[in-house]
């Protein structure tokens, strides 16, 4: 299932947040979206997943979601969004219950996704007992449980410390290698973008427009921290972002 954004524009209370964004997101590919703070990245993700309606343009879905897919467009949120009153297992079964998957079938799915996210020992733990990295792994497990065609990730690692982030990045790569999901990955972090993205979309400061889409040719599994061509790419992205970020900062001061 491919996604196509056609000339998306959006405004909040008269203030344009996104302008004229056209993008194609082919199946099995991760698209990273970077841009200065407040340029409308989260908004774009909400529009793609149908949590909000764009004021202009439309988001099109080409083809049907594959068989067995319970929730084609599935989010992983920056703040994890786990129900604090449900255990790890309960948080995952939450998204299965409405599809009539209960009892034995649910336990099988839950055991599978917990094994894939290395959480099998924490089945019965409550969110408050988990570290930030584990909470985000639970949220990823929950997303995997519905077999998404497209994963929409809004800064999934930015609430975590650098070491945990590195580990989870490797986990994400492994998960993608296993089941090549389509991903839209919003981040502030250029390292994440060059490690996880097949293509990287750079947005300008608000109102966010598409400045450039850069393809990263090296296979995701072969990328390592410290690769020289990745570092060069990261430097180039930073150059693109720098003026925008500086200007965005200035605008906030003037406002």
């Amino acid at each position, binding site marked *: 299932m491919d996604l196509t954004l056609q000339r998306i524009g959006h405004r909040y209370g008269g203030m344009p947040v996104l302008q004229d964004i056209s993008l194609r997101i082919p199946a099995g590919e991760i698209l990273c979206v970077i841009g200065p703070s407040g340029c409308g990245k989260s908004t774009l993700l909400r529009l793609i997943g149908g*949590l909000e309606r764009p004021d202009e343009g439309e988001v099109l879905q080409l083809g049907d979601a594959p068989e067995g897919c319970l929730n084609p*467009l599935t989010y992983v949120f920056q*703040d994890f*969004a786990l*129900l604090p009153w449900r255990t790890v297992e309960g948080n995952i079964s939450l998204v299965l219950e*409405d599809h009539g998957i209960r009892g034995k079938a649910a336990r099988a799915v839950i055991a599978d996704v917990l094994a894939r996210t290395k959480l099998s020992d924490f089945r019965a733990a409550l969110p408050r007992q988990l570290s930030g990295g584990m909470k985000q792994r639970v949220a990823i497990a*929950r997303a995997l449980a519905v077999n998404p065609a497209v994963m929409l990730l809004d800064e999934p690692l930015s609430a975590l410390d650098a070491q945990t982030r590195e580990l989870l990045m490797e986990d994400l790569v492994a998960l993608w290698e296993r089941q090549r999901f389509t991903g839209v990955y919003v981040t502030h972090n250029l390292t994440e973008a060059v490690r996880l993205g097949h293509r990287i979309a750079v947005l300008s400061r608000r109102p966010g427009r598409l400045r450039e889409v850069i393809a990263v040719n090296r296979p995701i599994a072969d990328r390592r921290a410290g690769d020289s061509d990745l570092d060069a790419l990261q430097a180039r992205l930073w150059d693109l972002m720098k003026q925008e970020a500086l200007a965005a900062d200035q605008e906030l001061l003037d406002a």
Partner: protein
Amino acid sequence: MPERARPVPFRGGGFAPVAKRGTGIAVFALLLALIEWGTRAGWISNLTLPVPSDVAATLAGMARSGALWTHLAPSLVRLAVGSLIGVSAGIAVGVMIGLFSYVRAGLVPLVAAIFPIPKIALLPLFVIWFGIDEASKYALIALGTFTPTVVATYGAVDNVDRSLVRMGQSFGLKWSSIVRKIVLPGALPGILSGLRVSLAIGIILLVAAEMLGAEHGIGAYILQAGSLYDLERLFAGVVILSVLGVLTSWVIGRAERRLLRWRG
């Protein structure tokens, strides 16, 4: 010249009340001992306060003669029935206000108008509407517990983390599932703490209702004792009410600890 070394002054701590076992009981005991001493020694006149041990004796006598139960049983039934009606209606209306804009626009001003009316003032009206029997007492207690429950409930629903609701929608959960599995559990802490206030108001109204046309009941008993200026019996009744208040608060505390274990 070496600087003098001294520890950094401690400025943290406080603002985190913890349960100190027995403190409450100690305060009670101290107060009672003081009054006992005062009334016996005479620096508290026996027109002001009764001797605590006499009140205890009166209570013991009531328990022996069975009068305690004849007064307590009808009161408990009234409180239970009245507050059950008021609280469940209050939670239902509060959740509706929290969920539907039209219900909110229509009912919030109405609730705000009813809330400050002293329900006791309406008692004669209730007697005309519902008769002098139990029904008017249930209605009074129900109305009294209804309004605070509504206000607490819709506040609690408003405070449910919207990002969790958004999460539910993003996973395609049904509306009813979102309400049952996300909104209601999220509102439960607020609803339970509202319940404390509602039930205390229920006890106040119980006594008021029983002071008007009830043969038995704690309120009737207190009224009787008061009109005879029988301080021991009056205070015996008051003690029963206080115990009732402490008990309901304890029960809610237990419920909170069981239902909100996830808060840690």
